[in-house]
């Protein structure tokens, strides 16, 4: 039997406890943060060293076994969803901080190190790692690299791609690649930029060098209420137009504040149609100046109320609701489906109005939290998977939002990745020739096509099929059959 043979080959290389094959051992790996898609892998492998990773890849390449890398499994697009006849390669045991160089302001990390651990380890030096996804307690730095993850502070401090100096890892062929380095701008093509955000399709990352930045002396946040979502959207554009780049600029609609407030008691204005959180950081004088400026712009833009955090505890409380929006959605609804499109900021208001209309059409509620400063939307569609037809409706609702994102000049995913979840929407955003170019890039790194196959880029056949389903307008044929 295939599973038996592959397990035997891997057990020759790795200690017995590193190769899992029993059903109950495989079960915990059946999905990532996108729980709507589940698949038991053939095997789970948990290497402890970089050399073990290489050997696993070489062996799987030889036996032609697909490999799916997994960090902490918090991904929201099914990037780490296992392959039925493949190996799930967990990097969780490669979890050492190899080096913190405070003078050079860098950290060298194994991929399984959790995002927040990096900032914790750098804190004694007055430094931190800037990208702060809301999942930062759990998500791994390897996963961040694979998804090019962002956070609430990336408007000012950048995404993963702006904060990673170099990576090391292996191709499916078992070739060592060192891309980027502590020295900036190496000659040649920028393969580092290409590898970041490649969703585990090009290489398995075994080491990451990140940039650490000085912790600002002070941060304060303005919380502003708006009586209309479009006004709140315009206020975001007005702040940027005034030449201000806040450290964070987030928006929540009334449904979102209503869901989180009982959960975290952040003190949100529940009467407001939308609230904005705008953060200023820097020296005390700079923060005072910027806060005053932000308040000026927001009041001109129609804010009905404004509160500024006066203490660090208060600042964290204002953010707590935003940071806990996803779990809060989980409390008000049995299931929620998180979207991740990005649009030009000027379209935030119209987008919210359009989503409102879709809620009626699909008969589902949707609460909205936005990384407004970047135009990155996280509509959370609420549904109950146990009610027949609700997941299918949620799925179509989501696809319609993404198509609107593309029409409004944006993209189907700002930070969560395509994975398997948004693979059909890729047919809408990219032409056949562009998708062929992506496959060409994939083939350059992984000619055998064994690394995370079937993710991120849809085949021609798949897009043709999706196109056919599409013309029938909303009413999908065979909606009882699994579509992925």
């Amino acid at each position: 039997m295939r599973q038996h043979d592959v397990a035997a080959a891997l057990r020759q290389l790795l200690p017995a406890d590193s190769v899992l094959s029993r059903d109950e051992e495989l079960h915990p790996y059946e999905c990532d943060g996108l729980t709507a898609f589940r698949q038991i892998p053939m095997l789970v492998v948990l290497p402890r060293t970089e050399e073990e990773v290489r050997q696993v890849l070489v062996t799987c390449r030889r036996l032609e076994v697909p490999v799916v890398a997994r960090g902490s499994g918090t991904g929201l697009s099914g990037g780490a969803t296992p392959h039925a006849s493949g190996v799930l390669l967990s990097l969780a045991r490669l979890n050492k901080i190899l080096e913190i160089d405070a003078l050079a302001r860098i950290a060298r990390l194994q991929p399984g190190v959790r995002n927040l651990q990096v900032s914790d380890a750098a804190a004694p030096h007055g430094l931190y790692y800037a990208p702060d996804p809301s999942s930062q307690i759990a998500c791994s730095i390897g996963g961040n690299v694979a998804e090019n993850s962002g956070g609430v502070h990336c408007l000012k401090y950048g995404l993963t791609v702006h904060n990673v100096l170099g990576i090391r890892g292996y191709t499916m062929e078992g070739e060592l690649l060192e891309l980027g380095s502590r020295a900036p701008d190496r000659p040649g093509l920028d393969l580092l930029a290409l590898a970041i955000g490649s969703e585990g399709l090009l290489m398995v990352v075994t080491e990451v060098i990140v940039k650490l930045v000085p912790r600002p002396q002070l941060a304060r946040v303005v919380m502003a209420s708006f009586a209309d979502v479009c006004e709140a959207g315009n206020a975001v554009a007005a702040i940027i137009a005034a030449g201000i780049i806040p450290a964070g600029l987030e928006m929540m609609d009334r449904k979102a504040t209503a869901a989180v407030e009982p959960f975290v008691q952040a003190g949100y204005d529940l009467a407001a149609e939308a609230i904005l959180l705008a953060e200023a950081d820097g020296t005390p004088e700079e923060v005072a100046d910027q806060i005053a400026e932000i308040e000026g712009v927001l009041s001109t833009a129609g804010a009905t109320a404004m509160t500024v955090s006066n203490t660090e505890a208060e600042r964290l409380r204002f953010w707590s609701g935003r940071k806990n929006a996803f779990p809060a959605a989980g409390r008000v609804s049995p299931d929620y489906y998180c979207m991740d499109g990005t649009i030009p900021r000027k379209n935030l208001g119209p987008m919210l109005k359009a989503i409102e209309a879709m809620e009626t059409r699909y008969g589902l509620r949707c609460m909205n939290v936005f990384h407004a400063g970047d135009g990155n939307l996280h509509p959370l569609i609420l549904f109950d998977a146990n009610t027949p037809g609700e997941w299918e409706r949620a799925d179509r609702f989501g696809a319609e939002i993404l198509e609107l994102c593309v029409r409004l000049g944006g993209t189907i995913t700002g930070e969560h990745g395509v994975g398997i979840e948004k693979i059909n929407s890729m047919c809408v955003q990219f032409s056949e020739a562009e998708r062929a170019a992506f496959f060409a890039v994939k083939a350059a790194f992984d000619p055998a096509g064994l690394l995370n196959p079937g993710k991120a880029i849809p085949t021609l056949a798949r897009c043709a099929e999706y196109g056919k389903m599409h013309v029938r307008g909303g009413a999908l044929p065979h909606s009882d059959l699994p579509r992925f």
Partner: protein
Amino acid sequence: MTAPPGATLSELRECVTAAHHERKRLRLRGAGTKDFYGECVVGEPVAGDALDLRSYRGIVDYEPSELVLTARCGTALSEIETALAERGQFLAFEPPAFGGDPTIGGVIAAGLSGPRRMYAGAARDFVLGATLLDARGEVLRFGGQVMKNVAGFDVSRLLCGSLGILGIITEVSLKVLPMPRAEETLRFPLSAQEAVAAFNRWSGQPLPISGAAWCEGAAYLRLSGAASAVRTAKEGLGGERVEATSAAQWWNALRHCSHPIFNNSSIWRLSLPDTTAPLTLPGELLIDWGGALRWYASEDRDPDAQNVDVRAAASAAGGTAICWRGPAPSTGRFHPLQPAVAELHRRLKERFDPHGIFNPGRMIAGL
């Protein structure tokens, strides 16, 4: 060969597909400010007919409140910088113009950045999207015009610094930033070694640094940002204030490589981890990027002896060395690539430009 005046995309496509079918090599060219830059046979220009892309020009879209500007490849950098300045914005990566007026396509294809590189980011950090005309005449759009976009591989950033070997970057969307409200430059009499140490120490503190460079016994530190932040930082740092006009001259000289040391006939550009102590290499030294960029300039040297010294020293320090000016050593102008990485270059080139019509040999000999 020149693309027709006011060329349309379809005219460019015709040029390219014809070249592809005839296997005729094309040397992509904007304003030619970087003709000197790249791999080529000593004493010979890069092979192929020059394809002048200046006529495919114009700012396509610019919305200050979106912080995004989209322009066709032939648009002059000066036109873009003027449009941005009118709205109080700028290209924070400070692309070098080398005394001319480069096209934005050339700026992105070269991927070079100025003194703000370590503080604001490199050229590639500001690329949001790009359109590529590949050898088969396909027009491929990657990325977009929004701040965050992870749909598909990040080919637009791959194109930044690609030196045209994958095709013509016909259009780019760039993130732009508001100009800093205040700017000050401080001067400190320091040795190179002291300057490198000081730059790293300062960079670890929450200071609004936007440039840190050293030459001839003096370190220069530029502070940019909110007036209050610049004022506080200046008071804490000490040093001697450089008057605004001479400060602008100094940073421009670094940005555009017009500092007198660039008059030398042999110039090496080393990229190193910024904490690297000054290397013992011959020539005048200019340090930029807070220690991460080191220029060594001198007259008349044996290129091969130099090659061994400079490359080996850069590699040993964990960095790379480009022979910027002067006869190229036998191992090439650019630092040789790791074999597995070089192989990926070949495969990518093969897929985007199977007949090798675009800028043959410009980045890697024989590619």
